[in-house]
């Protein structure tokens, strides 16, 4: 096992709460009676449904196609009937008698597909980054065709507290992860593969190391257990020692990163032709009776998962999708699991912080915690008075929104929310400036076109007048006028 080359700057060590689920093997969920599939499970525009209400669909059948850039197709995880389609979701009433009635998948032999074919198949399978960002994997892999990739990093860090799904995947499905890695090697033509795992997961490290022994150029890297070690930029810095320049992609430094769950999805798609329809999530928190790691179909309502995990111990004070640091709080327990949901936390009041809000005393803890080495206290001072230019200069657009600064702030200042809002406003300003420039060019072009058309019309009129056979009346008038002008000039 290799050690990290550089320990990333900053970072925090929250209570991990991973012991609630780290020893629990993955449980496969029974089919729920309905699935709610959001149309937007990726970075781009919502997908377009290709089915209608009342249609019977089989498992793995395409129900929505991608809609433009960074938009991915969606497949039915289980067989059933489309019961509702609105602008956000497709709801399937599951056929409980035969939910796994599949439309059929085409397996492919190893090395049978070309690089382009593999990327195309990954796109058609609707695979997106399953670590949470939901960036279309096919688009990310196409980068490897434009840039020279020498290093592939598989992200097994799982730095967020409570989450253990990737840990269990590495322990139980290591061979499928390796399958996915081999496909990724073929696509990216990377020389070296590193599997980054935090040192608080010794069983996962042992499992992956055993599998790596048989491979050349594949090694496990033990990473310091800090949050946010799983963030792509910090992972690249720790494993390779290189930093990704601001505004550039990881491919610019020759690195491509993929999550372990995404690797498994790639393996399933390329080897067995199965689209992305299920995923492993961690359901945890003190409000659920039996915290577990579960294999659930995409679109399964959280309430159904909770019911199969022993039900609720108490009413949760908050439901969080993802980890506690970057997860989104929701208020509907029937909300579905999506492709990017890595965990569902049902937290009680005791597990939630209630810090005392106060004023910034410039203690500087936020500077010590920031993994991007920014100065949150100065940035928030500028954002409070809407000084967006100065805030952008200080690097707010580089902020990961990881929440480390807000975690350590003794005054409980909502730093992450300020930076989220600041980035949004700066993007709006830049967009407005670009739009203004564009519309003015359009308006100038239109004016030019009008003038040109008017001039052409004049020229055509004049030309027509010149070539017309002169009539008598005209010629008389012409003679008179020429005579008049001759008199004048004389």
């Amino acid at each position: 096992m290799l050690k990290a080359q550089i320990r990333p700057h900053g970072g925090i060590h929250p209570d991990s709460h991973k012991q609630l689920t780290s020893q629990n093997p993955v449980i496969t969920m029974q089919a729920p009676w309905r699935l709610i599939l959001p149309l937007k499970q990726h970075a781009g525009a919502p997908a377009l449904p290709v089915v209608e209400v009342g249609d019977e669909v089989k498992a793995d059948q395409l129900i929505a196609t991608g809609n433009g850039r960074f938009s991915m197709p969606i497949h039915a995880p289980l067989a059933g009937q489309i019961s509702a389609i609105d602008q956000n979701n497709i709801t399937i009433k599951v056929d409980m008698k035969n939910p796994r009635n599949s439309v059929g998948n085409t397996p492919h032999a190893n090395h049978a597909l070309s690089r382009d074919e593999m990327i195309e198949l990954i796109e058609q399978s609707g695979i997106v980054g399953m670590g949470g960002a939901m960036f279309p994997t096919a688009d990310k892999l196409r980068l490897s065709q434009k840039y020279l990739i020498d290093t592939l990093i598989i992200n097994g860090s799982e730095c967020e507290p409570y989450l253990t799904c990737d840990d269990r995947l590495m322990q139980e499905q290591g061979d499928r992860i390796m399958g996915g890695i081999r496909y990724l090697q073929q696509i990216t033509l990377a020389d070296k593969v590193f599997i980054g795992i935090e040192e608080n997961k010794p069983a996962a490290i042992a499992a992956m190391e055993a599998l790596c022994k048989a491979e050349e150029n594949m090694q496990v890297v033990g990473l310091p257990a800090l949050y946010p070690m799983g963030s792509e930029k910090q992972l690249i810095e720790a494993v390779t020692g290189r930093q990704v320049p601001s505004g550039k992609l990881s491919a610019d430094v020759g690195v491509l990163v993929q999550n372990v769950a995404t690797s498994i999805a790639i393996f399933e798609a390329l080897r067995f032709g199965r689209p992305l329809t299920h995923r492993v999530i961690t359901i945890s928190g003190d409000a659920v009776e039996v915290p577990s790691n579960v294999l659930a179909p995409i679109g399964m309502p959280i309430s159904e998962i909770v019911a199969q995990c022993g039900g609720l111990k108490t009413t949760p004070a908050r439901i969080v999708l993802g980890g506690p640091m970057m997860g989104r709080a929701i208020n509907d327990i029937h909300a579905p699991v999506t492709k990017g949901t890595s965990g569902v936390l049902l937290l009680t009041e005791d597990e939630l912080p209630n810090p005392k809000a106060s004023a910034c005393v410039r203690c500087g803890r936020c500077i010590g915690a920031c993994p991007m080495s920014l100065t949150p206290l100065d940035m928030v001072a500028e954002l409070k008075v809407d000084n967006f230019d100065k805030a952008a200069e200080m690097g707010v657009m580089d902020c990961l929104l990881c929440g480390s600064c807000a975690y350590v702030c003794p005054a409980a200042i909502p730093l992450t929310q300020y930076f989220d809002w600041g980035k949004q406003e700066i993007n709006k300003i830049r967009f407005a400036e670009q739009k203004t420039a564009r519309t003015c060019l359009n308006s100038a072009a239109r004016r030019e076109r009008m003038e040109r058309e008017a001039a052409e019309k004049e020229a055509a009129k004049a030309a027509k007048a010149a070539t017309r056979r002169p009539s008598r009346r005209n010629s008389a008038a012409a003679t008179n006028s020429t005579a008049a002008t001759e008199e004048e000039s004389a």
Partner: protein
Amino acid sequence: MLTLLYLFAIPLLAACIGYALGYAAIHLKVEGDPLVDEISALLPNGQCGQCGYPGCSQAAKAMACGEAPPDVCPPGGSALAQKVAAVLGVTLDSNGMKGPQVAAIAMDGCDGCGRCIKQCSYDAIVGATRQLHGVIAEACTGCGACVSVCPHNGISLYPDPAFMSRVSKPGAIKPAALEVKNA
């Protein structure tokens, strides 16, 4: 002799300073109106004429002397209006500002007469004659010229979706209680 010097010291000093100021006022005078130049630099300078002035420099002059309000430029939108207001040191009347807007043509009303295409100075409307017309939101500045010419009142302005705010400034609005809903 010394008394005379004491008596005239201050008037002498005042006279010297006055002369220096007068010299500066004449020989170090700044040409042109820097305020108009500053405003002109902020404007898009596309000479589209939507403000009603023949060109952007005329609009800048009008804004500088207060003849035109800071939000007179449609492509600039509220971002530009705020910048100009800041330069002029005036407060912007937010009541009139509705934020960036774009036009949309109602499908059922449109008969394809094409009056809106002729009116739009940003080429943001597309459509063949006697066919349904549509507005390209990315090119539309929300100036509203098409709204008045449509004979069927089929065009309306709505907030530009590209400027929708997902996150609000902390402390601006009190967050609503997030009660968990159960079955």
